[in-house]
C-alpha cells in the first residue's frame, strides 16, 4: 500500500490488515486458531510486530 493511503488513530499507519473469508458459522476456537496462524505467518514473513497485524475472519463473502 502506498504511503498516504493508510491511517491508524488518524496517523500514518504501519499496520497490515488481513481480511479473509472463512466458512459460515466457523466455531470460535477454529476461527481464533486460524487468525493466530495468520498473525504468526504474517509476522514471520514481513517482520512486523504483533501489534501491527489486524486479522478479520469473515463469515462467507467479504463485502466490497
Amino acid at each position, binding site marked *: 500500500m502506498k504511503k498516504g*493511503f*493508510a491511517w491508524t488513530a*488518524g496517523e500514518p499507519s504501519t499496520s497490515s*490488515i488481513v481480511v479473509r473469508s472463512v466458512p459460515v458459522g466457523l466455531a470460535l476456537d477454529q*476461527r*481464533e486458531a486460524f*487468525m493466530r496462524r495468520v498473525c504468526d505467518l504474517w509476522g514471520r514473513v514481513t517482520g512486523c510486530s504483533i501489534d501491527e*497485524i*489486524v486479522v478479520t475472519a469473515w463469515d462467507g463473502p467479504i*463485502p466490497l
Partner: protein
Amino acid sequence: MPLYRCAVSEGLTSEDQRARIAKEIVRIHCDVTGAPPSFVHAFFSETPAPELPDGKVAFVLGSIRWGRTDEQKARIVSELTDVVATALGCGAEEVGVVTVDVPSKWNMEGGELLPEPGEEAEWLARHSAGP
C-alpha cells in the same frame, strides 16, 4: 477494528485530504461509540470511476463492531458523508457511506481477539504495558 475502507475515484484525493478524512473518521467514530482511537483504521484505495457505485466519487465501507445502535450507525453515516463531501469539495449525493456490523470475535489485533464494545480497558492495559 473498526476498519473504514474508503474507495475514491482515481486521482481525486491528495494526501492532505486523505489525512483530514482519516482524522475525522477517528473523531466521529470515537465521539459516537466511545471506542478508543487506537482501534480506528482508515485505508484508502483509488478506484476507476466505473467501479464505484453509480454517481459516486467516494464510497466508504465501515466495518464496525457488532452492538452499536441504529442511531449510532445513522450518525456515523450522516456525519461521515458530510465530512468526506466537504474534504473532497463534492456534493453529499456523490459520497456513499455504509456500515456493516462485525462480531468482535471475528477480529484479532495485537495477537488477541478484540474485546466487546465497552470492555476495552483491560485489553488496552495489556497492550500498552508492552512486552
